[in-house]
């Protein structure tokens, strides 16, 4: 299968994502922000970084890129979109996901391993995980504190759309050790149709043993499985 990896001015995790896709045994194409062509992608990744310098607000300007019009259409048609870090911020600004990402409560840029509890395996991005499993995946952001109206949070929880929550390494509540102070310790969510995932942690940085964790590969593997299951013409590799 083919992953399309968006590149905005200031994107910095595009090559890391391409490497993770390569490790998974699949191909990727880079998608320039000014283009509209998704290059036949089965899944579009909006990677981490600081698109357009993150001026005004994180993701606020990237949302208007020509490429994002195609991504909006792709998502509306059921295409898989994975937003990581800045990608999550862009998806919220583009209203593909509810809520917003704000300054970490510590006011610090946090670059460290986070432990994520898989809250649902019933998404195309988490099906290769066990519900309740704890994944070690790095975070690297200054503005990752997820906020939304209480009613929005309640709906996300009731619909099983919280994909990942920050926890302690043993899976217990993270308490004050949250990397950013997100409401209800939310680290990742999916949209109503479950074909769009936004997460602050970087699965592509937990993609091979050299990086200290391979847990992030479960997310890429889940996408691969979902696309294979979906495609009549899927050819096992």
């Amino acid at each position, binding site marked *: 299968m083919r992953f399309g990896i968006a590149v905005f001015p200031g994107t910095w995790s595009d090559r890391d994502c391409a490497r993770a896709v390569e490790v998974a045994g699949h191909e990727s194409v880079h998608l320039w922000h000014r283009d509209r062509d998704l290059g036949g992608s089965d899944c579009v990744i909006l990677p981490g970084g600081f698109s357009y310098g993150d001026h*005004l607000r994180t993701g606020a300007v990237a949302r208007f890129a020509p490429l994002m019009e195609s991504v909006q259409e792709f998502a509306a048609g059921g295409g898989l979109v994975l937003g990581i870090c800045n990608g999550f911020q862009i998806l919220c600004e583009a209203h593909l996901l509810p809520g917003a990402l704000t300054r970490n409560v510590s006011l610090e840029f946090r670059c460290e391993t986070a432990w994520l509890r898989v809250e649902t395996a019933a998404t195309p991005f988490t099906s290769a995980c066990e519900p309740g499993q704890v994944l070690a995946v790095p975070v690297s952001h200054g503005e990752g504190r997820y906020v939304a109206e209480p009613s929005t949070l309640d709906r996300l929880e009731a619909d099983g759309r919280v994909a990942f929550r920050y926890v302690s390494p043993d899976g217990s509540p993270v308490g004050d050790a949250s990397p950013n102070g997100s409401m209800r310790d939310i680290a990742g969510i999916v949209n109503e149709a479950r074909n769009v995932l936004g997460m602050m942690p970087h699965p592509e940085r937990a993609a091979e043993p050299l990086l200290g964790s391979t847990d992030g590969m479960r997310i890429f593997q889940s996408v691969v499985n979902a696309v294979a299951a979906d495609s009549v013409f899927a050819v096992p590799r």
Partner: protein
Amino acid sequence: MRFLAEVVISLKPVVNDPQGLTVRAGLHQLGFAEVAEVRVGKHIALEVEGDSEVEARRRVAEMCERLLRNPVIEDYRIEVRPSAGAVPASPATPA
């Protein structure tokens, strides 16, 4: 006609403002014990052409709705007046 529009973006009251809390702690440290609350926001000054002040305000409100503020977390208010020339570097203090 040219107008100066000043937009003040503030976090909604329900959104935690760690910058504000940090600034408050700093002010308390300096002895300004009277400071009860601090909220940090953004100030955006725009020079815009328009037929009237009402029209200029309407357009700037549209800019706020579409780009300048995030409706999930931010409120905004707009002040418009005929432009005297240069965009000021900071919000005008009330006379």
